[in-house]
Structures are given as C-alpha cells and as structure tokens.
C-alpha cells in the first residue's frame, strides 16, 4: 500500500474507532469537565452553562445544535459514546423534569449529525436562543 494509502486507512480506522468502553461519567471528566467544570457551570462569556442544555431541545434545530457544537462533534468519542454522554449530561445538568421527557440520542442520530462541525457557533446559538425567547 502506498504511503498515502496507509494514511487514509489509518484515518478511516480512527474515524470508525470502536466504543472506548468508558462510562459517561468518566467521559465527561476526560472530555468536558476541563472547561465546563465539575458542576457544569462553565465560564461566563467563554464556556456555556450546561444547565441550559435541555432548553435547546425545545426549539427546532436545537437537538442538532447540541451534536454539532465543536466540543461534541470533534470529540474523539465514538458515536455511541457521544450519544450516551449527551444523554447523561442532559439528565445530570438539565432541569429535573427532562428525565421524563427526554428522547435519548441514538448512535445513528449522532452519525448523521456530527459531520461537519458548526463553523459559526455563536450565530447559531443566538438564533436558537432568540427562537426560545419568542416561544416563551
């Protein structure tokens, strides 16, 4: 196989990496907590507060948004692990009521949504929040 072929094969292998087998709790520690902090509160103006996570599910495009933000889409997690992590985060940080209504993300849904990642996160986020306010 040519050098380029080797590289592409490696890339394909990585993109199809199997589930790492960590629990969502540990994946949160390893992939998210550094910026979002243990309580999910983040940093004003730089890292969103995860308690707002559940609100996005209430507007069209919000469910996709949570998968396509770079932190989700670009994470090294497999689609299955990312689905499990998002479901865990929504239950852990979202409003208590969400546990009853949440329609969990599936690995297939993640596969369909996560590529490519969003380029203009702030604009998308603002648009969704405006819709949320309009809906209130």
């Amino acid at each position, binding site marked *: 196989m040519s050098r380029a072929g080797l590289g592409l094969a490696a890339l394909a292998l990585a993109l199809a990496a199997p589930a*790492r*087998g*960590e*629990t969502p*709790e*540990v994946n949160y*520690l*390893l*992939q998210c*907590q*550094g*910026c979002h*902090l*243990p309580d999910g509160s983040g*940093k004003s103006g*730089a*890292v969103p507060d995860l308690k707002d996570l559940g609100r996005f599910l209430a507007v069209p495009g919000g469910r996709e948004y949570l998968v396509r933000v770079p932190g989700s889409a670009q994470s090294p997690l497999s689609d299955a692990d990312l689905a499990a992590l998002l479901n865990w985060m929504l239950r852990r940080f979202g409003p208590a009521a969400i546990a009853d209504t949440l329609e969990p993300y599936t690995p297939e849904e993640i596969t369909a949504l996560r590529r490519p990642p969003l380029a203009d996160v702030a604009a998308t986020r603002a648009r969704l929040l405006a819709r949320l306010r309009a809906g209130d």
Partner: protein
Amino acid sequence: MARMDRWMTGFARSLARRTSRRSVLAGIGTALVGGAAVPLLPVARGRAEPAPGDRVTPSGEPDPTTPAGDPQDCGYWRYCAVDGFLSSCCGGSHNACPPGTQMSPITWLGTCRNPADGKEYVISYNDCCGKDVCGSCICRRHEGDKPVYYTPKSNDIDWCMGTREIIYNSTVAVVVGVAREKG
C-alpha cells in the same frame, strides 16, 4: 534526620533511588519560563515502576519513599502528563496550591496508571495562578499530550485563563475518578 530530607536533594535522597528508572542526568532540571515551562535540562519523565516489596499507603498509593509515591518527585505516578512546576515543592501539595495563589478551575484532564493497584485514574491538572513562576521541581512528562489546537489534551497551554490573572505559578494533579482505559 528527617528534617534534612529535602536538603541536597541531588545527593542524599537521590542516591537511595539511583537504581530506579531514570537516566544518569535525570536530576538536572528544565526551566520556567515566563509562565510556561520550556525544556531546559533533562528531567525525570519516565514512568515510575514499583520495585519489589513496595508498600502501599492506606489511601491506595505507592510508598512515599519511592518516586511513584513521593509528591515532590516528578516520577510520582499522578504527574504522568505534567509540564510545569510541582506545587508540592512551592508551598502547596500534590493537590493543593501554594499560599496566595488561586487554583484555576478551567483545565485539562488525562489518566495515569497507579502502580500500586494497576488502575488508570482520571487526573485533573490544575494550574496555580496569580503569582509568578515558582521555579522549583520542574517536571515535564508528556504521556498523551497533544498540540495546542487539541486544547482539552494540551499541557503546553497556560490554563490560568480560569482565574483573574493568567500568571502561572505551578501545577497540581488531583485524582477525580477511575478510568477503565488510558485516555
């Protein structure tokens, strides 16, 4: 003479563990600088392996008389991806910052293997900030370190961005969980 323990670290203490994993020049350090550690002189960076007969502390860590269990030694098992000064040599401890600094809440996390139980633990590397570089116990190990653009796994970054000042002093390694695999 226990109180002389840290005196002439290059000599008395080191002699005792000279059979361990490091190169002959391992005691020579690196350096600060301007808030970010850069290579300077050779430092410990090997993975500490327990020696036969190593005891385990009640908390489940290796014997503190071995590098794998000594928080003032770069070989301490939790420091497997530290790039900076050890808070434990700067007035703090392995999991508490020196007096007058602030621990940055924003940081990166990785895993290190605890040789006492063979398990991978999730380690939070938090920078101590708001005072200039400590200058003691530079430690540069890069297990799993990634470039700056791979932010959540980069030890080159001055993580003090979560505190009032970005001025870097030293680093702690806090156990925050148990992982199944290296990650």
